């Protein structure tokens, strides 16, 4: 068995809304090992956003234990969690969240800007490497408003890769993209998976589960299904099967 990257033990998260207590997570327990490509699925209100926030160290659970790369997160302060996010997690968002009027390289450099150990030259080299890894080696100096949605999402993925994180958290990473571009991004995720990266992909699109190695389904704050996908489909095959776009 390979190394445990994420270990959740009976995670509960309650929110106080007015007089009522909303139980967003009602005891989640699972472990994700290094090199897994996990999709977390569930309908709206199932608790997947809260779970993602918890996994991403943006939020702390009300009870239960969360170990990220062997480190207990629950008792950490805000600043400590910020540093942990900086070193261990790469986020990919639905709406890319690139800095406006900023070049691709500068966007990718951003996480390293908050890491004092990385010097300017190393920062730039690593950013360029990450952009090459997502196939944007020729668009280093393009500004975010000069790029298409797919390209912007690739920049965002490069940004998630640049700190060499323990886990990449993707939140509806293909939600804003058309089918073809979505598959291109999925191809990229599968490539990263093949390189041994740990990926957690939160989505409500059931199709995506077929391209991941494992699928966790949530409902009402519980895990209702946790299955390993024996038969992983290849996104590049699916992409090739798509009818050609005229404007592509």
């Amino acid at each position, binding site marked *: 068995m390979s190394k445990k990257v994420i270990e959740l033990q009976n995670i509960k998260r309650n929110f106080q809304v007015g007089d009522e207590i909303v139980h967003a997570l009602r005891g989640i327990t699972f472990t994700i090992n290094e090199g897994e490509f996990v999709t977390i699925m569930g309908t709206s209100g199932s608790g997947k956003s809260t779970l993602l926030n918890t996994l991403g160290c943006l*939020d702390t659970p009300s009870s239960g234990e969360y170990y990220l790369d062997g480190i207990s997160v629950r008792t950490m302060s805000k600043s400590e969690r*910020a540093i942990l996010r900086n*070193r261990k997690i790469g986020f990919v968002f639905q709406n890319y969240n690139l*800095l*406006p009027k900023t070049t691709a390289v500068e966007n990718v450099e951003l996480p390293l*800007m*908050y*890491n004092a150990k990385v010097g300017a030259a190393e920062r730039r080299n690593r950013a360029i490497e990450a952009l090459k890894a997502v196939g944007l080696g020729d668009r280093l100096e393009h500004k975010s408003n000069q790029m298409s949605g797919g390209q912007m999402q690739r920049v965002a993925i490069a940004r998630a890769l640049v*700190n060499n994180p323990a886990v990449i958290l993707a939140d509806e990473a293909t939600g804003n993209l058309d089918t073809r571009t979505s598959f291109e991004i999925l191809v990229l995720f599968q490539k990263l998976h093949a390189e041994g990266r740990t990926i957690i992909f939160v989505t409500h699109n059931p199709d995506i589960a077929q391209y991941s190695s494992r699928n966790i389904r949530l409902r009402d704050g519980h895990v209702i299904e946790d299955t390993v996908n024996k038969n992983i489909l290849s996104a590049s095959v699916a992409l090739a099967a798509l009818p050609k776009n005229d404007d592509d």
Partner: protein
Amino acid sequence: MNGTNLFKIALRALANNKLRAFLTMLGIIIGVASVITMLAIGQGSKKSIQTQIAEMGSNMIMIHPGGDMRGGVRRDPSEMQTLKLENYEKLRDETNFIAAISPNVSSSGQLINGSNNYPSTIYGVGLDYLEIRQLKIESGEMFTEADIQSSAKVCVIGKTIVDNLFPDGSDPVGHVIRFNKIPFQIVGVLESKGYNSMGMDQDDVVLAPYTTVMKRILAITYLNGIYASALSEDMTDYATEEISTILRREHRLKDSDEDDFTIRSQQELSSMLNSTTDLMTTLLACIAGISLIVGGIGIMNIMYVSVTERTREIGLRMSVGARGIDILSQFLIEAILISITGGIIGVLIGCGASWVVKNIAHWPIYIQPWSIFLSFAVCTVTGIFFGWYPAKKAADLDPIDAIRYE
């Protein structure tokens, strides 16, 4: 946290919004420029007044007869005969705080040299008069102690007299001119001093030994006044007090009697004029200071809007590992950069505006180095003070809400 990186981040954020940054700066620029210009104008007029007073002799003390009542009628001080030559001699011998002292008697009349004549005033003075009034002999020399002893008919004249009596430009030294039919030999010419702050021509003077004026022109035994100069400006008060004591004793005044003389010092004049210009400077500085505060509020306003506008960016920065302190520092650095850059531009514009005022309006201008430091310091403090609240607001954002902020 890495300071250099935060500085770079703040600089990039500003560079992405050049116009907005500049407009924010504008308030500070105008504020600083007006502080510097206003202070320069205020200090300039103060300094020019001080210079003029110094030219007149800032240590000067003037003693005049006065304040006497005869039968209920207050009399014109110039008619008073209470200041005697003996008083002058006592003062000269007994005071400790006086560097120079000279009696003063004056008479108006017509000066005649051949076909040229000019109405002027002849001042009978002692040798110290030059030192007291800060006068210098340009050509020839001052009359001597021997001239005073012998009531010699010699005089030293100012430039205005030279111009009027010797229009052909010949050297007046050695010539004999007449004052009210009495011949005076010119022994020296004074260096020009121009007009004083009251608009009086300081070159329109004829100086002669006081004995000559008293005996030969006026035939009087009293003095119109005594001029003295204190050892230093600070000692003017001691000197005034000492003179007062001696004169009261000499005039045998009882404790209940009021002075029959008046003592005025240039210090009084200068403090009066200074208080006027100080008031003006304070008013100008207040107006300018208000514009600086308005500029600061401008920074706060823009930073505040900017935090709301950039909520998603802040959320993103937090999700990739920026701590609250990093976000706080970034926004604070942005605010300080804006205010300091605005401050530098404001200083330049302020100095430029002062230069323009000096060269076009010909106002006296003096830029005090401390006014530049002051406005600079105020700028930085303004940046921190008005940048703090928006920066704190940004740092306190919840990354979960911020990243999904629409």
